């Protein structure tokens, strides 16, 4: 029901120019998508914060929940650059986030969500010339949450920045070469007995085919 009011859970008209699938195929992917693109994050926002707010739309009673979070990283520095992918188990959870969370604040910034056809390796990196999101290349305002001007940053922010850099850029960080992006547990894990004997299959199922590459929305948002 909802003829007389626009729905907030419609995907945007964004089309990734690196995505090779047709509009039609992409529409079909979006129609069942469990993945959200989340934009306008502060560079200091952690996955735990993202988990906390997005788990509010999780429906574990329907077999749902957050499968994984993929933090968008600066291509060069391997530090967060203000976007992320949140992958749920259910399409309805992604839609609920569009309706209830997109446009509200996380870490004191208005975040924006969009349905996404699915994460593909390589999409976790910014596409701007300097490694971050394109939108930050051209931004001429001061934005403390997205790099701002470091000399004005408060002590607490510096500490958080260091922690954020340490998370992804330091030895063992997820942004380093050879690091894997987790596949997330399968929604329908078998029983313990079966897990032991068939866990390889289980992993394969978890790493199911992702749609072809589609880039981060580097010019998303306000």
């Amino acid at each position: 029901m909802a003829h007389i009011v626009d729905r907030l859970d419609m995907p945007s008209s964004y089309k990734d120019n690196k995505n090779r699938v047709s509009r039609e195929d992409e529409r079909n992917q979006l129609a069942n998508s469990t993945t959200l693109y989340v934009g306008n994050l502060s560079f200091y926002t952690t996955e735990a914060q993202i988990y906390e707010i997005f788990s509010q739309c999780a429906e574990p009673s329907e077999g749902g929940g957050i499968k994984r979070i993929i933090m968008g990283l600066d291509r060069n520095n391997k530090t967060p650059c203000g976007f992320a992918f949140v992958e749920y188990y259910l399409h309805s959870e992604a839609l609920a986030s569009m309706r209830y969370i997109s446009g509200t604040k996380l870490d004191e910034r208005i975040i924006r969500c969009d349905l996404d056809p699915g994460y593909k390796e390589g999409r976790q990196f910014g596409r701007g010339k300097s490694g971050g999101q394109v939108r930050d290349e051209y931004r001429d305002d001061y934005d403390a949450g997205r790099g701002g001007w470091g000399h004005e940053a408060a002590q607490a922010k510096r500490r958080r920045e260091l922690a954020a850099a340490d998370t992804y850029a330091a030895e063992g960080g997820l942004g380093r070469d050879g690091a894997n992006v987790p596949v997330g547990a399968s929604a329908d894990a078998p029983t313990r007995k079966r897990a032991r004997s068939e866990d390889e299959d289980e992993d394969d199922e978890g790493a199911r085919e992702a749609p072809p590459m589609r880039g981060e929305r580097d010019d998303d948002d306000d």
Partner: protein
Amino acid sequence: MSGWRGGGRGRGAPRGGRGGFRRDFPPTPPRARDPAIQARENIIFLADQEDFNVSTDVPMLARYLRDKWPVGAAPGILDGFAWSINEQAHKLPYYAALLLVLSKEEFHLDIAPERRPQDPITDRVRAQASALASNDDPFTSGPTGGEAEAEVEAALGGDGGADKMVVDGIAEGGAGEGSNGEQEQERRRKERCLSWLILQDLGIRFREWVDQRSWLKVRLAVSFFGHLVPIGLISEESYLATLRSFISVLEELGGGGKRAEKVIRVVTEGLLRAGPRFYESNKQAVDEIISIISSSVTSREQSRALHNTFFLPAEVARGDITPEADQLDNALSTLRMAQDAGFMKVTWMPEPARRFMRDPEDTGVVDLYNIPEISVPPEAEGGPSLSRALEGEGLIGTFTLGGKIGLTDGRVPNPSTPDGWMMQSMILDILSIYEVNRVKCAELLLKLTDFCLLDVFRGKPAPGEEEASDIAVPGEWILASTLISIILSAMFKLPKSPHHVIYLTSVIRELCLANGAMMAPPVGLAMRNIFSDLGNGLDIEIARRTAEWFSVHLSNFAYQWMWKAWIPDLQLPMTHPKRAFMHRLVELEIRLAYQERVLETLPEEMQDERDAPALQMPDPVFVYEDPNHPEHENATEILSMLNAKASWEDVLTRLREVSGCTGSTDVIPQEYRRIAVHAVLHIGSRSFSHFLNATERYLRLIQELAHTQKGRRELLVFVRDFWQNSSQMRVMVIDKYLQYNLVDYEDVVEATFGAFSARPEGVRPDWPTVWTDYHAWELLNNALIKSKGRLVAISKRITETEREDETIRAKRNAMVDNATPMNIGEDGDVDIKESTDSKPEQVSREVQELLRRKIELESDQTKLISKVVSSFVNSLVPGRSSGVAVPSQLDKVIDGDYNDPLVWDTVARLGFYREFMRSFGSDVKASASELEPFFKDLPAGVDPTAESSTLGAHLVRVIYEQAVTL
């Protein structure tokens, strides 16, 4: 589009784009050039204009619709009415007025529309006729053949009286039969009238909505019909018959089940809308309807007191289990009050149709439309479930705090009165309908006054009225208080809110953003009211939801809150519900932000207790980092292996070596398993992704370390120790360990009631426990819901697989059928038999496997429920709780003796036991035979003067019995 702030150069623009604002603007809507779309939008926007004038604008629209109907606008006009009635509950009286104007002679079409195949009415009727004729609707009693015509005729409003007409040329096979010139002339005369055509369409849609069990649409349609009765567009007889059809559900065996509530609401609102004249002329019948509702409402089980928002253990133990008034009690008292007053019209509801009423001396022909007969279908079994918002639309009780109605200042509608019921219902309907767009929802709620008679809401109480009676009447209501009170009451509805808490949270956010000066005070007042009742019996689940809502709310408003008002409460022990709530709120804020940011918003007095668990920096505790730790070197070695991505086998081998565990089957000593698990958690401690990564890489290692039941339970303790400063990480890790099958659901229950509930040695007596700080329930509830979710997920998969099987089978059969003629003469018969039998069997094996798995899961679920129940019973019944570090003090709870701070642990545990029985009541009921032994020794009926411990044991049993009898 509201909220769209442009975006500058998008990437789709020829010059490329960079930066800019939101990209997620919807595609540009098509220009409304199509007359149908234009007409539809004009209907939808009726009365929305700033300078709307009933006397001129309604006839103007009517004239426009009359002019456009013949030129292609008919489908849009019909949709416009149907959509508006379904989705604009606040404007029903305006649509009634428009329909009344359309019924007047001057707005009639010049000629009745031709019944062409593409005519929307004809299409619908044809479909209806064919459905009735083939009798494929399981919910209608099944007229066939010629009876279908009569049904169609009924759907079209034939009244069987003097105006009876035969709709020829519509139903299959009906053409020409029984028609004659006069009747055809009569039909043509009626169908020149747009209101008649619109009502015919609505009547057909109404039947569809009933058959589809779209209760919200059904209720709004009946309400709309209710407005049409007093203005003479719908016959009183058919309206009464419609109400009776709904009421008949209550007379079914079992009282109609879940439908009872829905039909009572349909009828209550229908009667209130139809008003005094309808009551006057059908007094006996309406009184009878009310009496049926009365017996249905009053004969309900007293055990629904389990849903009470206030819970006083001593009173319940002594037999006082009075249920709080819920929506059905309110409906009944509303009806009785209306009955006494002769169903006077709802005072605040506008009556625009009044301006267009016919002159009483007008003797012109009035065609009364007859609502088609309906038959309320039984409850859906296994069909597609409605969304949460539509399933639970409008379910709400009366939440009263401090003797005032609602959660704010009492200046809110009293839902046990006709005026209050209708206002509450309208607001709840708007919340349900606009769930897809919270921004529009808030916008509409804020301009609700535009659709009510003047002065029903005030900005603030008139001078001297603050101290007036606690129950406000229209004119004393305050819009902001009303909205917040009703939204929060919906949020706190037990056992389950009709909406996601986060949806209602975001609506309140939008209301506050739109008009902070107006909306913020009632939000703050509600919060303070709720807080003041913590520890006085307010249900702990409501406190939990409040913290969930308010933490997100504050994170949207710079964490500004009047913490200072609560400084005096810092004198209470940390186990007290008020202190526990404060800490929970801070903890949830920290989860959404970071510790330093939140602490800086707290008053110094609160910051002084920095050692309180909830205020800690949520960092991991890796004790082996300390060079003085005896296992520092071993741990460092294991950690460096993990950092170097050594294989799990190598790590395990090395672990065996350093632990001196030589035999391959020997169990590695606990301390070394702890080192390995902490090392894996340590490499995964930087973020959620790191954690998933580390867990996925060393899944087999963890499985090896925790392959026994004892090992799994110790694994949970390792996790607790590592993340002792972050309840969020504990919840996340355990959730994923369940998902990865590293631990069992029962392990979580065992650890929660066992190791996690234990008090560390030397801890301060007023230190929070896992029960007072909500953490135990968070873990337990997650495990229970997740376990149930597995069942739901597998049931869905079974349905999907069966459907796929069916499709494949059908295709194959079709292929075989096509192939058969070609195979005749060869060995065709044999081939067909093989191909039809073998493949479906192969497919159904998959279903069989899923069914087998489902049975396993169901058995696991029963065991899990049983484990939770026994754990609760053993930890609550006085004298039984041996082995648990915090023994039950239920006897003191019954005595009201709260001197020992740890009594609050029992209060919290009891509260969550009650919440468990409420939320998982259906599972408890299903496992009742397995659960009986836990309760058979507990006293069934006791003397209210019995000893406190006996009363306590009895209370545990009472709560269980309430759950199984609901």
